[in-house]
């Protein structure tokens, strides 16, 4: 066993004697079952050790990947299921900042205040319902996506469909309700983005990690990606708002 932590770029590096599809199916199923990354890495190392020692084929020795993943998960200590509350709050706050800050920027550029319309409330309600659905049925949704043969198409179409629905709601339900100062909306947006970033900073980084400390990807990259996701998206939306205003 080596002491220096290293990282690998592909799952198959964790169990090179196994079939790549088997390894992928095994890891996806274990992730869906909420198995921690270190346990997944331990299991892959055990598979590799066994295959090297016996010369057996991975399916011959361990059976179908998903069934083995489920059986192994059942044999491990009980673990919390579902999405942690901290991640829910962080995502909701990040999404709120993503909606509020570009609106504030648009209002500031126009020199006016933010007009809250019926469409805004409906869109907010739709987003809240969508988030509740994702958090309540996250595992089922992910399982359906991963299990679908058209998962790439679904992953590409789902955000496009969401944007289309939102644009439709904003365009059709334009009746004004109330006018809010841009600085207040901007302040709330900044606060929401700040809360999301602060909460994300405390998220545990759960990489697939082999017993000798090798990880799939680096902790540093994973932490920065997690931390920067909402701020970067929000800044991009604000820049897009400015570009749209400047070119109109």
């Amino acid at each position, binding site marked *: 066993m080596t002491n220096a932590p290293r990282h690998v770029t592909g799952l198959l590096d964790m169990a090179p004697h196994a079939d790549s599809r088997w390894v992928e199916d095994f890891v996806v199923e274990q992730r869906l079952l909420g198995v921690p990354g270190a346990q997944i890495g331990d299991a892959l190392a055990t598979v590799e050790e066994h295959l090297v020692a016996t010369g057996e084929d991975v399916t011959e*020795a361990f059976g179908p990947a998903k069934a083995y993943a489920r059986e192994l998960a059942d044999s491990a200590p009980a673990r919390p299921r579902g999405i942690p509350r901290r991640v829910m709050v962080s995502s909701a706050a990040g999404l709120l900042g993503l909606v509020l800050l570009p609106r504030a920027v648009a209002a500031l550029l126009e020199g006016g205040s933010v007009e809250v319309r019926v469409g805004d409330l409906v869109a907010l309600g739709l987003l809240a319902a969508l988030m509740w659905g994702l958090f309540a049925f996250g595992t089922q949704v992910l399982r359906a996506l991963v299990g679908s043969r058209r998962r790439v198409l679904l992953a590409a179409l789902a955000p496009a469909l969401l944007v289309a629905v939102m644009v439709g709601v904003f365009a059709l339900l334009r009746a004004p309700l109330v006018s809010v100062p841009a600085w207040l909306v901007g302040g709330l947006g900044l606060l929401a983005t700040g809360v999301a970033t602060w909460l994300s900073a405390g998220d545990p980084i759960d990489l697939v990690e082999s017993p000798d400390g090798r990880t799939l990807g680096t902790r540093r990259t994973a932490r920065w990606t997690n931390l920067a996701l909402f701020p970067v998206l929000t800044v991009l939306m604000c820049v897009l708002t400015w570009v749209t205003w400047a070119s109109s």
Partner: protein
Amino acid sequence: MATEEVWPSDWLRGVLAVTVLAVLQRGAAHGYAIAAALSEAGLGTVKGGTLYPLLGRLETAGHLEAQWLPGDGGPGRKVYVLTDSGRRHLADQRDRWADFTTLTTALIEGETTGVRR
């Protein structure tokens, strides 16, 4: 159960845990060494897909511990060691298994007396 049909799989399912503990009582062993010992004892081939989840359950129950030993260019080998709890569990299961086999043998062979615990 993924074993060659030396013995009915239902029988093996009931006795595999205690036989694994018995193998580990001889000393620490790797997973495939445990499988080899079971095979040499005449139980047939126990596949990795059956053995490692069982070892995981026994580890979760505190009957054994697992640790990785260094290897060349990789994690090395995972070695399983019987704990004190495992020794006590094995002793208890061994006594009960002896009673169980006496009772079932008497029943199958048509004898009227059996062991009462």
